[in-house]
């Protein structure tokens, strides 16, 4: 037992343990989110949703996952095999790293670092490379169009996203997510969502676009591009993209909850529960968006980013700098 504790105390072991835990969490979370997504969709559309596998259909995603795993993996003959299969792995790999600096709570911190935010932003930017490779490696015209859309969209939305994050980081004076969370309080009026609602709004819009969720799901737009970049994927190849999408959603929701909603701060309950609650509320909102709105057009999507969000984010950033500057002078 002592040896185990000692082992745990070692930082490298802590990281490995954490990564394993995170894999489990991502997988489990993917299942839960699929169920939530389907239930929310169903209730919005006034139907019951999954109902027959397990209580309230809770085991339905598990059955789906088993089905996906059992399916044949088809590789397009004319495709680039290596890129084709590297893509889903590449989509999934950076996701786990992004969970490292997530501020669940003090004692869950596997790797204390003061640049957590930068790590997340850097690695979540990698996701688009996998979409690009998937689109190119499939040798399918729809996939290629989807990949092209994904890249343009990612480039466009990274800018306002970073600016809105920076506005908060400047106010908090740190890039460490724990520090930013501690900078806020347990109550809504102490959150950055209240202090800087514009940044929160911009971040949410960009987060939806970054995770390729409707109404910005252009890379996969099934009524236009059949399934976009993952048209040719079957079985778990598709499953990994699917899982990565949900994991990415959790990451952006986690960052949003930490930056704007006070993270693990909250009365009564232990912090980790507050954090999860906040994450899931944001996820619910993102899902709710998807089942309400039509999809925007591609040029409109870019226009929203370059003509509205980027100037607004710049403005917001400048304001934040001024406010933070005044405060430091005082």
């Amino acid at each position: 037992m002592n040896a185990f504790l000692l082992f745990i105390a070692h930082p490298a072991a802590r990281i490995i343990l954490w990564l394993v835990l995170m894999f489990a969490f991502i997988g489990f979370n993917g299942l839960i989110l699929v169920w939530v997504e389907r239930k929310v969709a169903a209730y919005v559309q006034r139907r019951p949703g999954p109902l027959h596998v397990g209580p309230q259909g809770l085991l339905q995603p598990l059955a789906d996952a088993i089905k996906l795993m059992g399916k044949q993996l088809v590789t397009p003959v004319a495709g680039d095999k290596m890129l084709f299969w590297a893509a889903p792995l590449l989509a999934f790999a950076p996701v786990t790293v992004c969970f490292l600096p997530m501020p669940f709570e003090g004692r869950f911190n596997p790797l204390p670092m003061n640049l957590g935010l930068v790590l997340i932003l850097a690695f979540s930017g990698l996701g688009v490379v996998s979409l690009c490779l998937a689109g190119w490696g499939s040798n399918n015209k729809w996939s290629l169009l989807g990949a092209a859309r994904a890249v343009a969209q990612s480039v466009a939305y990274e800018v306002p996203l970073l600016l809105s994050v920076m506005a908060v980081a400047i106010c908090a004076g740190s890039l460490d997510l724990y520090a930013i969370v501690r900078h806020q309080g347990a109550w809504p009026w102490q959150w950055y969502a209240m202090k800087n609602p514009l940044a929160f709004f911009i971040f949410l819009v960009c987060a939806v676009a970054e995770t390729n969720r409707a109404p910005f799901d252009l890379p996969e737009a099934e009524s236009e591009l059949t399934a976009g970049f993952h048209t040719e994927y079957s079985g778990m190849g598709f499953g990994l993209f699917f899982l990565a999408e949900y994991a990415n959603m959790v990451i952006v929701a986690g960052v949003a909850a930490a930056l704007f909603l006070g993270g693990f701060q909250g009365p009564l309950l232990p912090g980790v529960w507050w954090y999860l609650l906040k994450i899931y509320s944001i996820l619910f909102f993102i899902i709710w968006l998807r089942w309400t709105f039509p999809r925007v057009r591609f040029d409109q999507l870019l226009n929203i980013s370059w003509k509205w969000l980027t100037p607004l984010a710049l403005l917001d950033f400048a304001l934040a700098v001024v406010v933070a500057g005044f405060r430091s002078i005082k």
Partner: protein
Amino acid sequence: MSFSKIKEALTGLKSLAIGLGLTGQAFCAENVTVIYPKEQVDNLSTYRGPVELVGKDDAPEVPKCVACGVCGKACPSNCLTILSPIPVKEGEIISSPAQMGPAPQKGAKGPGQFILDFSLCSLCGQCVKACAHKALRYSNNPYLVGYNREDFRFDLIERLRKRSRD
């Protein structure tokens, strides 16, 4: 960026919020679906499924049909086959089972066999309209399942007997 554009964007955002409100309301509202195996829809009585023979008032297992063959001719897709026993001429040996021929057969009073190939039927109802004796009608059973085409070749006389037994 002019003022009108900002105003337009704000009204647009308001429209999005209204949309969210509506789906939010629906989220809280009751389901409208009928969950099939547990519940059933209540309008099956008006459904018109494959045609069936009508039994005589005094003998429900005997069809009213007189095997005139009009329904078979009225059918646009030839899905009805009506055979009636060929009456035995004097001097011929009575073979068993009786020889069947396409209706109408002179002297035959009823159908010997009444086959509906439901895989061809388009439920237009022209046979029901054509029947002068009101011997055909729509059934209202929507639950039809079969594993091959042969399952949809219905022997209507057999089905009538079965129905009158139940």
